C-alpha cells in the first residue's frame, strides 16, 4: 500500500522521523531501541501509513475528515536541547504550560484519597500530590527511562503489532510515564494520573506509558484525560502493561477530553501466571474521535481478566472500542462487558475479538456488548468475534442494540418524574452494570456524576 501523500500529517511524521535520526535526540538510547524505532517506522509505512476504511480494523472508523488538518509534532525540538536525563526528576523542558487550574478541577475525584500526578502533553513535572510515594513503587519520566540501559528493554518489544498508530508511537515517542511496582508490594492508595492536553496550535502528542507490576504486587490506577486550548490535539498514546505472576492491576481510564481532541489509545497488556487485570474504559462526550485498542495477551495459565467499558457519545463524536483477548494458555478466565449509550448524531463502534488458541483448554471467555441508541440519528456498529481452536472451553458472546423501555419510562413518569429526568435515570441504570463494578466508591460516584452531567434535557 502506498500512503496518500495528500495527508499533511503523514508528511509531518516523515519529516519528524528524519529529523529524529539526525537531531541526536536518541543518541543516548540503546542501539536496540533505536533499531526498534526504525523498524516500527518502516512498519508504519509498510502498513500504508494512516489507516483508511479499506483496512479491516478501521472499516467503521473513517479517519479522512480528521486527517485533513495540519499538526506539528510535540517533543523533538525540546528534547534536542535536553542533553541527557534530568537527575532531579523535574523536567528540563521550559515550554510546558502551567497546568490550568480549572481543567485540573474537572478531573478531580471528590473524596478520593490517592496519589495524584499531572502529565501535561505527556510530560510529568515530577510532582506528586497526596503524600510521599511509598517504598516499592517507582514513577519515572519516559524521557529519562528510555535512556536508561536497565529499562530500555521495556521499549523494545514490538512483536506482533500490526497497528499503524502503535508503530508510529513506537517510532516517535519522546515522553510519558513509566510506573513500576516491586514484587510483593501492595500499594494501598490508588494512583490518579491526570493527562492534561492543551495547546494553542494543532499538535500531535504521542505519550508512551509503561506499567510493570511485578510478582504478587498490586496497584489501582486511574487515568483521567482533560483538555484545553484552541488547537486541535491529536493524542496517539501507547501503553504497555506487564502484569507478572500473581500480581493484580486495576486500571481505570476516564476519557473526558473535550472537543478538538482526537484520541487514539493503544493498550497492550501481557499477563503472567495467576495474575489479575481489571480494565475500565469510560468514554464521555467531548473528544471528536476516540479509538481504543485494548489488547490483552494471556501468556501463561490461570489468569483472570475483566474488561469493562462504558461509552456515552454525543454530538458528532466517533467512539471506537476495539478489544482483543488472546487466550494462549489453559485455565484462563476472561470476562468482557461493554455498554454504550448513543446520543445525537454520534457514532459508536465495538469490535471485540476473543481468540482461543489450541493450547488454551479449560478457557472461560465471556463477552457482552449492549447498546442504548437514544437518538434516531445515532449509529452503532457492533461486531463480536470469537475464534476458538481449543475443544474444551466455555465461551459466550452477545450483542444487543435497543431503545428506552417504554414500560420503564411510563412507570417512572407515573410517579411524577419528568420525562427527561426519567431518561437520565434509565441511562444511569443502563450504565450501572459497568459502574457498579468499579471497586473504588469515590470513582464510581465520580463516573455517575459525569454521566448525569452529560444528560441534560433535550439531549436526545
Amino acid at each position, binding site marked *: 500500500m502506498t500512503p496518500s501523500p495528500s495527508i499533511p500529517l503523514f508528511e509531518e511524521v516523515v519529516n519528524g522521523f528524519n529529523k529524529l535520526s539526525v537531531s541526536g535526540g536518541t543518541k543516548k538510547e540503546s542501539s536496540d531501541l533505536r533499531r526498534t524505532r526504525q523498524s516500527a517506522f518502516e512498519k508504519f509505512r509498510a502498513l500504508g501509513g494512516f489507516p483508511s476504511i479499506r483496512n479491516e480494523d478501521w472499516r467503521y472508523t473513517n479517519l479522512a475528515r480528521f486527517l485533513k488538518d495540519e499538526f506539528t509534532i510535540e517533543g523533538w525540538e525540546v528534547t534536542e536541547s535536553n542533553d541527557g536525563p534530568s537527575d532531579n526528576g523535574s523536567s528540563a523542558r521550559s515550554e510546558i504550560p502551567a497546568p490550568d487550574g480549572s481543567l485540573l478541577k474537572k478531573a478531580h475525584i471528590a473524596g478520593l484519597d490517592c496519589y495524584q500526578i499531572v502529565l501535561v502533553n505527556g510530560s510529568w513535572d515530577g510532582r506528586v500530590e497526596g503524600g510521599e510515594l511509598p517504598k516499592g513503587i517507582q514513577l519515572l519520566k519516559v524521557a529519562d527511562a528510555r535512556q536508561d540501559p536497565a529499562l530500555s528493554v521495556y521499549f523494545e518489544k514490538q512483536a506482533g503489532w500490526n497497528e499503524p498508530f502503535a508503530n508510529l508511537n513506537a517510532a516517535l515517542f519522546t515522553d510519558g510515564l513509566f510506573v513500576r511496582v516491586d514484587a510483593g508490594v501492595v500499594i494501598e492508595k490508588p494512583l490518579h494520573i491526570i493527562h492534561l492536553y492543551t495547546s494553542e496550535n494543532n499538535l500531535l502528542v504521542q505519550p508512551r506509558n509503561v506499567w510493570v507490576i511485578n510478582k504478587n504486587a498490586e496497584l489501582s490506577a486511574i487515568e483521567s484525560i482533560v483538555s484545553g486550548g484552541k488547537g486541535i490535539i491529536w493524542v496517539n498514546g501507547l501503553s504497555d502493561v506487564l502484569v507478572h505472576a500473581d500480581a493484580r492491576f486495576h486500571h481505570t481510564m476516564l476519557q473526558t477530553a473535550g472537543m478538538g481532541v482526537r484520541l487514539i489509545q493503544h493498550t497492550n497488556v501481557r499477563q503472567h501466571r495467576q495474575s489479575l487485570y481489571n480494565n475500565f474504559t469510560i468514554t464521555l462526550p467531548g473528544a471528536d474521535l476516540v479509538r481504543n485498542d485494548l489488547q490483552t495477551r494471556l501468556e501463561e495459565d490461570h489468569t483472570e481478566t475483566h474488561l469493562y467499558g462504558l461509552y456515552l457519545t454525543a454530538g458528532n463524536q466517533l467512539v471506537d472500542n476495539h478489544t482483543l483477548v488472546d487466550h494462549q494458555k489453559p485455565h484462563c478466565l476472561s470476562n468482557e462487558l461493554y455498554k454504550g449509550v448513543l446520543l445525537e448524531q454520534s457514532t459508536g463502534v465495538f469490535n471485540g475479538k476473543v481468540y482461543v488458541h489450541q493450547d488454551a483448554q479449560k478457557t472461560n471467555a465471556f463477552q457482552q456488548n449492549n447498546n442504548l441508541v437514544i437518538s434516531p440519528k445515532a449509529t452503532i456498529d457492533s461486531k463480536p468475534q470469537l475464534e476458538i481452536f481449543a475443544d474444551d472451553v466455555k465461551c459466550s458472546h452477545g450483542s444487543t442494540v435497543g431503545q428506552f423501555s417504554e414500560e420503564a419510562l*411510563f*412507570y417512572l*413518569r407515573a410517579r*411524577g*418524574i419528568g420525562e427527561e429526568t426519567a431518561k437520565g435515570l434509565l441511562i444511569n*441504570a443502563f450504565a*450501572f452494570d459497568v459502574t457498579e463494578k468499579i471497586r473504588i466508591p469515590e470513582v464510581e460516584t465520580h463516573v455517575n456524576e459525569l454521566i448525569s452531567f452529560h444528560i441534560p434535557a433535550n439531549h436526545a
Partner: protein
Amino acid sequence: MLTIKNLHAEVEEKQILKGINLSVNAGEVHAIMGPNGSGKSSLASVLAGRENYHVTQGEILFSGMNLLDMSPEVRAREGLFLAFQYPIEIPGVSNINFLKTALAEIRVHKGLPPLDAKEFLRMSREKQKLVEFDAQLVNRSLNEGFSGGEKKRNEIFQLAMLEPKLSILDETDSGLDIDALRIVSKGVNKLRSENNAFIIITHYQRLLEYIVPDFVHVLYDGRIVKSGTKELALELEEKGYDWLKEEAREKATTI
C-alpha cells in the same frame, strides 16, 4: 375529586371503553369488578395516561382540571397514583433514589420546599413501618428480584410516600398470598382518610373483605353495567358474572 363522563377509548384501533360514567369523591373507596377483558385495567391505564390508549369521546375531570390534557408525570404530581398490576423491574435505579426523585419533582410542582435528607429518611422509615415494608428492599434496585408480593407491597410503600389524592389499585391482589394480601390491605386502610380516595380494581371479592368499599361497580364490555354497595360484591362472588352478562345483553338488544 374525579368525574368521568361518557368515556370512550381505544387501543390499537380496538374500542375498549364504550361510555364510562363514574364519580368519585374525597373519602370514598370505589371497587371496580368485572370479568377478564371487560376493560378494568384499560380504565386504569387511561386514567394514568398510558400513551397507547386513545380517548375518542368523553372527558375526565380531576380536581376540576381536564385530566386528559396532562402528561402522566403531571397527573402524578397533581395527586393521581396508579399501583401497577405488573410493577416494572428497573435494575440500577435504587428504590430510595427513585422515590427521592419522584417526591422532589412533586414538591417542586406543588411549590413546596425540598425535603432535606434527614426529613426524607425519617418519612421513609415511618412509612416503611406503616405498610410493613422491609427496610432492606428500600435500598435495593427498583423491584429487581422482588417476589410478586414484595413488588405489590412496594407499590403500597410508594403510595404511602407520595401521599396522592386519588389512588388506583390495579389488581393489586393478583398473585398475592393471604399474608401479603392482609399486609397490603392493612397498609391501604391506614392510608385511607377524609381527604383521599381509592379506586380498587379487582377480579375477586376477596380483597374487599379487607378493604371495605363504599361503592362497587361492575364493568362489562367497556361499560359500567351495575353499581351498588359492598353487598354487590358478595352477590357477584356467589353468582359469578354470567347473570350480569345476560342482563347487559338483554339491555343492549332492547335498546
